[in-house]
């Protein structure tokens, strides 16, 4: 799922720190954003916008962090509104709903662990590419 590859250049200490921070950003936001799935996305988006003009390594990792948050947003928003409709409307708890929440939890947990791992690795200056998101980032994020 996660591959460690060589980046096109050796990132400096300052770059590694910034890139690592982009992942930490989404982790910190989880605490605040747990009930509202969009907060994580906003946090990483702000960080991404702030580093749009940063070096390639920093930009690359900000993009990967943002993309991963974006897909989690879909999963979590659906679960969030489903829960709201159960609480406030005549919708009832079904096995389907519980299964969805568990599936969402598994994916969130996987993403959470991957984020921590990537934050640690990028801090050391090691380039980490995720399954799917790594390739997607390669397509979007180009070295100038």
């Amino acid at each position: 799922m996660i591959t460690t590859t060589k980046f096109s250049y050796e990132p400096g200490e300052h770059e590694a720190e910034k890139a690592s921070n982009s992942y930490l950003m989404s982790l910190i936001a989880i605490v605040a954003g747990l009930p509202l799935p969009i907060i994580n996305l906003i946090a990483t988006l702000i960080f991404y916008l702030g580093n749009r003009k940063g070096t390639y390594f920093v930009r690359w990792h900000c993009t990967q962090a943002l993309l991963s948050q974006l897909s989690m947003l879909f999963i979590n928003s659906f679960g969030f509104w489903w829960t709201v409709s159960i609480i406030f409307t005549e919708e009832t708890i079904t096995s389907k709903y519980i299964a969805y929440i568990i599936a969402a939890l598994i994916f969130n947990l996987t993403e959470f662990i991957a984020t921590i791992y990537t934050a640690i690795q990028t801090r050391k200056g090691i380039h980490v590419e995720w399954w799917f998101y790594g390739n997607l980032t390669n397509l979007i994020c180009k070295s100038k």
Partner: protein
Amino acid sequence: MVVLWQSDKLNLQIKIMRKTIIQGLITIMLFFSTWFALTQIDWITVFKVQKVTDKTEEKLGDLFLEIFQNNEKENKNLFVVNSIDSIVTKICSANKIDRELIKVHILDKGEINAFAIPNGHLIVYSGLILNSDNQEELSGVICHEIAHIQLNHVMKKLVTEIGLSALISMTTGNGGSEVIKETAKMLSSSAFDRNLEKEADIKAVDYLIKAKINPEPFANFLFKLSAKDNEATKYLTWISTHPDSKERAEYIIEYSKDKKTKYEAVMTIDTWDKLKEKLQE
């Protein structure tokens, strides 16, 4: 040389793109298959969700029943109870409804009303029985209320109007007696939404036909009561809370038109007359 290098680059780009799309699709499929695999487990039983809801419903039923029993005298006359039971039992057995689930209570009150409260309690006011011209009319109203019970409309309505948390707090004794009284009043004197009413009407016709009871008097009952003069309307709770009686009567007739079966009476005319006599005592 430059052209060759550029086409190589383009090929690589396409390769990455294809790989990304495949990986993306696999990820989406992975999520949905995880979800699908997890739905194979009956989580409701695992987490005992149903048990909690059933317990809440049971307690709410007892709570509301107590309020009605405190306000009105329950008619425990064996003849009356048995007569109404015979109608309910016939409807239940013909429609494979667990008879134990429907708990009928006849309360002595002039109001023409019948309603369902949680946990399968069905309250019938003596006014309704006395104002029904024949047993088929009464059976129709009973079927309509049984349909509300069977389709779980009662709990749905309570959850929508009051909220599950307020309902649970009622059962734990934190609801406040005023709130419980108001809720009980709402259950007895307001209708469900239009769609739920129609659903119950159609289901009631199905029940009636399966039990070999003619549904036409049920439609007539709606017609008749909607046409009654104003003086009587204050007693016609069941009609005034169920809007568009005329329209309802029409679709009941329409729905039952092509379902010709041989109808038979649940009880004899003598028993029906005696039942009314006993209620008037």
